Each structure stands twice: as structure tokens, then as C-alpha cells.
């Protein structure tokens, strides 16, 4: 599959690149960002897939998170795809910020007019890894996945539905139980139809209850004062309850942070890096560093 380089920037000793390609699953041109650390020039590197949240593109994470520095340090390739197919000219795709464009919810849609293009689940779990492994110096056995909000939901379901595929999984303020929250209900009914049993295949809480496979180790960070937490969009307690019962290892950390987009680390954990300037989730690059460190722990590096 042909990749077209859209941009390339030297960053932290490596390269932050953006590529475009013709996607077979999504049937449109898709962009994705990939960071190549210095180690990639000589060795195969583990890969981390970062799934962004509602309204994001491949740009948000790479410009705001500051993830290149820890990725370079640990020799990680970081892939940040887009959040939905683009330019498909589907009626109604741009009407809502939480459904359609920029809100693919990482499912394979079964309903018209979405089912042709909105196959983000297969894109993320099959097409993209094949593409990445074919074009970049990756260690195909060492993959991990992470994401924020809707992307957190995506990361969790990809890991739960593919036991053993990902060495590590983590999420920031993920949507844990989409079947029970307004966002999920809106998206699933649109993409998957009214039959709720079809929704279960894409709900992390339901999947965790039925999970059997190699042991997972899930790390979830959640801002305490996140407006979407209090609006019952995220529902982490449901996931924790199920994981406690089914003995799925999860470490869930409630951070003293004021909004969904401002997931700062607490003082106790972010020693050398100091405090991040307020205003943006992407200053959770600090948190990202911890996540990277965890991937290191899990033997990815």
C-alpha cells in the first residue's frame, strides 16, 4: 500500500511524520501521524497506538502532548491515527460533534449510511498495524494501545477483543461503559442499530466481564473534576466493579484535575517535570511519560 509523506519534522532526535494513504477498510484517504525515535534508525522498535478522542484528528496529540521526548528516550514508535473517516460526503456526518466526523467510536458500523466507511475498529486493529509493520522498523510482537476519552474506549475494547495482541493497555478518562451513557447510546444506535446486544461487542465493561485470555494489566487515569465524569458519560466505577469481580487487573487513579481536557499529574508523581501550564489535556504529556514508563515495564522495550 502506498504511503505519501505529508510532513516530516525533526523532533527530540527523531522524526515526527504524517502520512496519507488510501484506506481499504474506510474507503477514503486517511492520514496518520507516526513518530520515529532515534533508535529506529538502527533497530526494530516497539509500537504504541494512540487513539484520540471526540473531534480530534491526527494532529492534536502530536502537537500538544509532548510525547516525542519520552518516546525518543525509550525508543518507542508512536502511531496516532485519525478518529474517523474523512470526506466521505455522508449526509449528516458533520451535524454533530459527538457523532459522525471526528467521532468514529472505533466500531465497525452495521447501519446505513455508515457501514461502508465507518469501520474504524478494523482499521485500527488490522489495516493500520499491517501498514505500519510493512513500512517502518517495528517489532511486530510488541504493540500497545492507549487513548483518551473516546480513544480510551477504543483502546480498551481493542485490547479486550484481541487477547494477547497488545502487551499493554491504558487510557485517560475513557468512556468505560458506552451502553449506559448518552454519548455511547447516541453513537451505537446510529452505527449499530437499536439492538442492544449488538452494542455489547463494543462495550469495555461488558467485554471485561466476559474476558478470558492472557492476563491484562490496565492503567486508567481519570480527572476528579472532569465535567464528563460528573455528567455520567464516562462511568469508570462500572468497569472497576466488573474488573474487581472478574479479577481483571486494573489500577485506576483519580487525579486532582479540573477538567477532562486537563489531566495533569499530581505533584507527588511528576517530580522532575514540574507543573504543566493549565488549559490543555495535552499537557498530559507528563502523564504520557508515565504511561511510556509503564510500557517499558511491561517488557515492550
Amino acid at each position, binding site marked *: 500500500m502506498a504511503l505519501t509523506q505529508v510532513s516530516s519534522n525533526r523532533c527530540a532526535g527523531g522524526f515526527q511524520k504524517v502520512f496519507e494513504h488510501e484506506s481499504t477498510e474506510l474507503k477514503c484517504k486517511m492520514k496518520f501521524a507516526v513518530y520515529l525515535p532515534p533508535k529506529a534508525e538502527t533497530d526494530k522498535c516497539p509500537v504504541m497506538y494512540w487513539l484520540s478522542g471526540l473531534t480530534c484528528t491526527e494532529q492534536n496529540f502530536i502537537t500538544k502532548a509532548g510525547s516525542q521526548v519520552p518516546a525518543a528516550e525509550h525508543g518507542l514508535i508512536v502511531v496516532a491515527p485519525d478518529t474517523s473517516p474523512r470526506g466521505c460526503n455522508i449526509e449528516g456526518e458533520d451535524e454533530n460533534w459527538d457523532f459522525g466526523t471526528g467521532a468514529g467510536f472505533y466500531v465497525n458500523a452495521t447501519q446505513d449510511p455508515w457501514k461502508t466507511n465507518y469501520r474504524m475498529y478494523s482499521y485500527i486493529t488490522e489495516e493500520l498495524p499491517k501498514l505500519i509493520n510493512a513500512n517502518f522498523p517495528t517489532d511486530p510482537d510488541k504493540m500497545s494501545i492507549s487513548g483518551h476519552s473516546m480513544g480510551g474506549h477504543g483502546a480498551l475494547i481493542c485490547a479486550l477483543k484481541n487477547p494477547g495482541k497488545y502487551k499493554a493497555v491504558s487510557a485517560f478518562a475513557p468512556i468505560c461503559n458506552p451502553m449506559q451513557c448518552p454519548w455511547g447510546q447516541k453513537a451505537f444506535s446510529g452505527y449499530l442499530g437499536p439492538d442492544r446486544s449488538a452494542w455489547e461487542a463494543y462495550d469495555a465493561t461488558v467485554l471485561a466481564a466476559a474476558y478470558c485470555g492472557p492476563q491484562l494489566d490496565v492503567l486508567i487515569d481519570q480527572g476528579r473534576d472532569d465535567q464528563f465524569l460528573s455528567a455520567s458519560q464516562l462511568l469508570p466505577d462500572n468497569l472497576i466493579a466488573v474488573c474487581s469481580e472478574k479479577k481483571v*487487573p486494573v*489500577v485506576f487513579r483519580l487525579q486532582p484535575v479540573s477538567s477532562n481536557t486537563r489531566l495533569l499529574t499530581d505533584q507527588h*508523581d511528576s517530580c522532575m517535570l514540574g507543573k504543566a501550564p493549565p488549559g490543555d489535556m495535552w499537557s498530559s504529556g507528563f502523564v504520557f511519560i508515565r504511561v511510556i514508563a509503564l510500557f517499558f515495564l511491561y*517488557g515492550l522495550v
Partner: protein
Amino acid sequence: MDLHDIRGGRLDVITEEAEELSRESTNMADGGLRAARGVSTFQRFSVDTDESLCFEPCEDGLPSPIGAERGLHGDVFEVAEAESDGVTIRKQLQGKVTEMENFASHLEEIFLTVEENFGRQEQHLEQHYNDVLQTLSQRCDDRAAGLEEEKKGKLEALYKQLLACGQAMDVSKELIETAQEVYRCPDERLFLKVSQALLPCASVSLEFNTPLANLPDVKTMMDSINIVPAPSAPVINPQTPNSATQTSLRVCWSLFSDDTVEYYELYYRPVLEDTPADSTLPSPPVIKQRECASCPEAALIRWESGNTDPVDSYTVELRETGTVAVPTCQCLIQLQAGRRYLICVRAVNIGGPSSRSEVISVSTTGTLFSLLEDTAHPCLCISEDGFTIFYGEEELPISAMALEDNNAFTRCVAVLGGLIPVRGRHYWEVEVDDGTEFRIGVASEDTERNSYLGANNTSWCMRHILTPARHKYEFLHNGWSPDLRITVNPVRIGVALDYERGTLSFFNVALEQHLHTFQCHFQNHVQPCFGLDNPGALTVHTGIEAPKYAFA
């Protein structure tokens, strides 16, 4: 009208005297008023009651001069009665006042008597101790004088002997000269005659026995009178650890005087390994295995002297690496990781080294330490092997708890571990039950013993709390913990301490799951700490090689 209560019991003691005194004082106070009335106005107080003072009204009924003083006329009886009441009351009040004054003066007397008595006692004591001190100093002086005299006597005797020696030498010299002259004399017969006469003299003088042992000292003393005094002996510093190799040795010494020194002479001789058993040789020390600790870079060896007499120094021997000399009963040796060393200790004094102590084996794989039993809370029991702690349900006797000047935890049921004081990486594991409420982590050596682990800024710990609803986990430092949920309860927890990075991490060993990391620059050395918040047990596992993920 009742007067204020005064405890009858107290006044009892002095009532009699009070009565006596008050008789006189009232006489004086009232200006003779009561003299006319007599002394029956005071009532006896009972011993056991707190009755307030009760007074019977005066029974004499003489017309009151008070009334007369006030100049009231009219109904004499009425006024007299009223006035006599007033007078009675006044009398009573005055009586009370007098009593109290008496009481006060009595107390003062008692006070003075007590002061006097104690003064006297103090004097006695001082005197007594002065006597003792005097006696002692006198004895000391006597003894010193005795020694002085002995010294003088001996010196004089030696001097005399020396003189006698000198004289004998002179005589001998003369004899030799005479003999030589005689020998030179051509007359052989004369020579024989004279020599025969000389011989007995020579023999007499030769029989003179000089105590050779004393001479060199005395000679030195005599010599030193005329010449520049020899400098005082330098003092060799105790050998520092790691100052010796198998072929070289570093010796340091100091001179503690202002003597001029031209040069030093260093004398040495090898000490033979297998010297025959000499009573002056020290006994071998005994290594205290429980108090030894190790980590991949070093081992801390502690031992008991094994000698009642003082010992000059100790030698710690490692197979392969040669010897290191040590002045105290412990030694920190730098080692290489991942090896096994056999270590023994010898005690050394002037007589030579003792035989080897029993050998211990130290493995520089992982970090090894034992629990410091003197830090354990009284309610904490430690198993025989020293690695499991129990918090029982039984109440301990108060006597066990009320210990002062103690190193033990007094509130938190906890104990510290004796981690080797090396600022490297250390890893250990703790095994718990699902229902054990524990606190595990590290604390500085001087962490407050009356505080709970994690509640102050000198301890960092993971805490497990069991609520009816769920298991709760906290990572406490300075009373604060992040808000965490853990879905699978760890029963074997790995603790990884990295001084350089300033991290303390906790893992669920079974899942190889990272739980939490404290970031803190540990300025002082810290000790592992283990505490139980409810009856239960936990086991410490040391000497484990840290898994890769622990210090990733």
C-alpha cells in the same frame, strides 16, 4: 448565721492548742471583753466530720459593753438581746479570725520545723559525703605517695648498683692496667707474685652481680640527662579498612608532641599464621548472622568481640580478596554483585591474631536484611526465623507497653528492617493474606516511634484497609494518598527502592503489575517498615534478585 466551712479534721489537730492560744489572743483581741466570759465559748470539733464551726451562744448574759459603747438606750432587754446577739456574732467572728491566725502561725511553725529538719539532713549528708571524699582522696594520696617512695627507692637502688658497677669497672680497669704493667715487667717471678695477689681481687669484683635487665633503662635515663631528649613515641593509627592488599600495606601514624624529629624508623615483621597457642592471643570473634545485611554491591558484617579483654583490632577475611583490618565490631565491605563470599573474622592484639571465627556465607544476589527486633511494637511477635510478624488478639500486660527510652513503636504495630546503608537499589517482597490490613514501605531510621507509618514525612507506605464493601488501598506519605482503585488484591507485594532515582515502587508480584511509585529524594538512609493494623500476619522475603520490571 453560719460561718464558712472549715474542715473539722484539719482543725482537730490544733484545736487544743488553738484553744490555749485563742484564750490568750481573744483576751488581747477583745480588749478584755471575753475575759469576763470565760473559755467555754469554744466547742470541741468531732474528728470525722466536716462540720462547720458551730458556736453556742454565749451563756453568761452579762450586759454587753458594746451596747453601752453604742450608747443605745431604751428597752434594755431588747437592745441588750439584740446587742448581745451582735456581740455574740462578733465574738464568734473574732474567734474564727483568731483561730485562723493561730492555724496560720501553727502552719508557719511546722513549715519552719520542716525546713530546719531538712536543713539539718542536708548538712549531715554533705558532711557525710565530704568525709567519704576526704577519705578517698587521702587513700589516693597515700597510695600515690607509697608508689612514689617505691619508685624512689628502686631508682636509688639502681643508681647505687650503677655506681657500684662503675666503681667495679674502675677497679677492674686499674687491675687490668696493673696487670698489663706487671706483664710488661721483665721480672717473671715478680709478675707471678703480683698476679697471684691480684687474682682474688679480680674474682671478687667479677662476682658482682648486676641486674642486667635494669641497666639499659637506667643507662638511657642517665644518658638522656646530657643529650637532647628522644622524641616521644609516635602513635600508629588503627589500620583503615581497604588499606591493605596482598602485597602492600598502608601505615599511618601521628606524633602528639612538639619534639623535633629528624626521621622515622618503621619496623615490621610478618606474623606467622600458625603460632602455637599463646595465652595472650585473643579468642576468635563470633559473627552475628542475624545482624548482617547485604545487597548486590556490599555486605555489612557484625560480630561479637568474643573477648573480655580489650582487643587491638579485627581482621575481616574474605576468600579470594585478602584481609581488611577493622577497629570496631562491624565492617562494611564492598563486593561484586552476583557472587558468593565466605567471610570470617579474627581478633588481633599485640600477641597476634586469634583463630578464625566461624565462617558465614554472604551472597550478593539481591538484598538481605533482618528485622530489628528492638523496634518492634510490644504487641508484635516475630517468628523464630525472624521473617514473619504476627499481631495477636491477646492484650499485652501494661508493663510490656510502658517502656521509656525505647526504640520500639508505641502506637503503630510495626517493626523496621535493618537494611544495609548503601545508596543503591534494593528489592524485597512481602507476603500477606487477603484480609490482612497492613502498612509496608520504608521509613527513615529516626522516624517518630509514636506515630503511624505514612502519617508523617519520614515514612512512605502502601496501606491496605478492609471495609465491609471493598478493599481499599492507599499510598501514604505525610498523611496524604492518591485516590486509587486496584481490582485484583495483591497477596505478594514487591517493593523496589532506588536511592539514585529517588523512587519507591510497589508491584503485584503474581501479575507483574505496577501499583504505584513514590518519587522522593531520600536524603537520609531509610529502613524497610512493616506494620499491621488488625490481627494478622505478614512474611518478609529478602535475598531475591530484583525482577527486570522492578527497576525498569
